[in-house]
């Protein structure tokens, strides 16, 4: 299958998972910052996007991240009850629980999408979560949606050229 081929191909090129991390300004982003100043080492695979609150993470951002080449998406917010905007993380959790089901039915493995509550003081939890997520995604291999989209489009071109020779039969 396609996924296996891709894995095989890219593994030789030293593929590394790319994870988009949406961290809320008040807790998880601060924790990631703390991890930095405390010189806590974690896998370098996350690209952090700071949002004001985990409640700002529109499910469209998550799907778009996958579509544009992310192998995983991590959302980090304040612990329940601690959201700077009272309810934002609950809204995030509800959307997350729903989106997980959709993403799963559309063939993206559960381990590629993760939500964690990490408070401003939990720098070490950033390390644990990121390392764990990277390890799990390494097992899964690349998601590779941009390549997949391209292959789907190629299907069309191949068939078009096949069909091109038989034009007259439709006339």
């Amino acid at each position: 299958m396609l996924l296996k081929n891709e894995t095989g191909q890219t593994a030789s090129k030293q593929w590394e998972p790319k994870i988009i991390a949406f961290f809320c300004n008040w807790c998880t982003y601060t924790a990631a910052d703390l991890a930095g100043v405390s010189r806590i080492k974690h896998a370098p695979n996350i690209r952090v996007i700071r949002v004001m609150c985990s409640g700002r993470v529109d499910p469209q951002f998550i799907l778009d991240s996958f579509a544009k080449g992310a192998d995983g998406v991590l959302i980090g917010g304040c612990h329940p009850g601690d959201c700077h905007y009272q309810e934002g993380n609950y809204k995030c959790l509800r959307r997350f629980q729903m989106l997980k089901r959709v993403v799963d039915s559309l063939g993206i493995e559960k381990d590629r999408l993760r939500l964690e509550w990490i408070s401003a003081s939990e720098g070490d939890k950033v390390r644990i979560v990121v390392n764990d997520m990277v390890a799990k995604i390494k097992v899964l291999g690349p998601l590779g949606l941009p390549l997949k989209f391209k292959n789907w489009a190629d299907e069309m071109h191949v068939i078009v050229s096949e069909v091109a020779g038989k034009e007259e039969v439709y006339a």
Partner: protein
Amino acid sequence: MPDKPKLAFYWCAACGGCEESVVDLAEDILFVVDNVDIIFWPVGLDFKRKDVEKYADGEIVVSLINGAIRSSEQQEMVKLLRRKSKVVIAYGACAQYGGIPGLANEFEKEEILKWVYEDSPSTHNEENVRPQLNYKVNGSEVYLPELWNVVRPLDKVIDVDYYIPGCPPSSKLLKEAVLVLLSGKLPPKGTVLAPDVALCDECSRKDTKPTDLAFKEFLRPNLSIIDPEKCILSQGFICMGPATRSGCGALCVEGNMPCTGCYGATSRVKDQGAKILSSIASNIEGKSEKEIDSTLNGIPDPVGTFYRYSLAGSILRKKVSI
């Protein structure tokens, strides 16, 4: 007298409802035929592909194409019409987003063919015969179009100028579009020819929609009675009104059924399914995973619910693991 502007209708992967909406113009069709020449309309008039081929490039003023694209033949036809037409309009939800046929993107082609030609209860096909792409008979060869793995909206296959949304579009939108085209004052390319506000805005029940919703459970119209006065979403049925473009006059709600989202999204939204999912899920009452999950169990088919018409045109387009 100069020739009347030439107009073509064509259908691809569609149910015929869009054609029906043309017929639904009723006496307004007379206005249409007074002002334009319908030069191609397979469902209504006996013109063939070769009739289209004889026109010069760009000679057809507008082609209204409905249906999703999922076969080689559909692709060829829409490419031909694109070449011959000044303006191409994606007509209806299937052309705009893939529509109901786009839900086939949840399955593998082989799964679909096997079900249709072998496994479905109404199929009697003991030798498991499948249609062949070509076949020799009496010394000549016949061909069938190839079915693709992916169902696509029209604008993934050809350049599209405008969109008329709906499953099917209301005749009113069609008539307005014809008037706009005849007036020569063309809107900017890419415009969806329907109001750019959410359906709730034109819904007669909007005053009964509370600002704060808190869902404990979701109901389904086949299992529970819908109160004919109150906002349907506030009663716990999934109504796509908040994430759907208006223009239909809230037809389904008028018939006491929830909106399933056929007019697609407004211009600010990229993925209608993700948007309505976001809006509905965030209004669940529960705060723990367990409570939330038990409420969500009331939506047994989230893809079919939130992406009923828009899967093929959504950000992911298709089940990505197949």
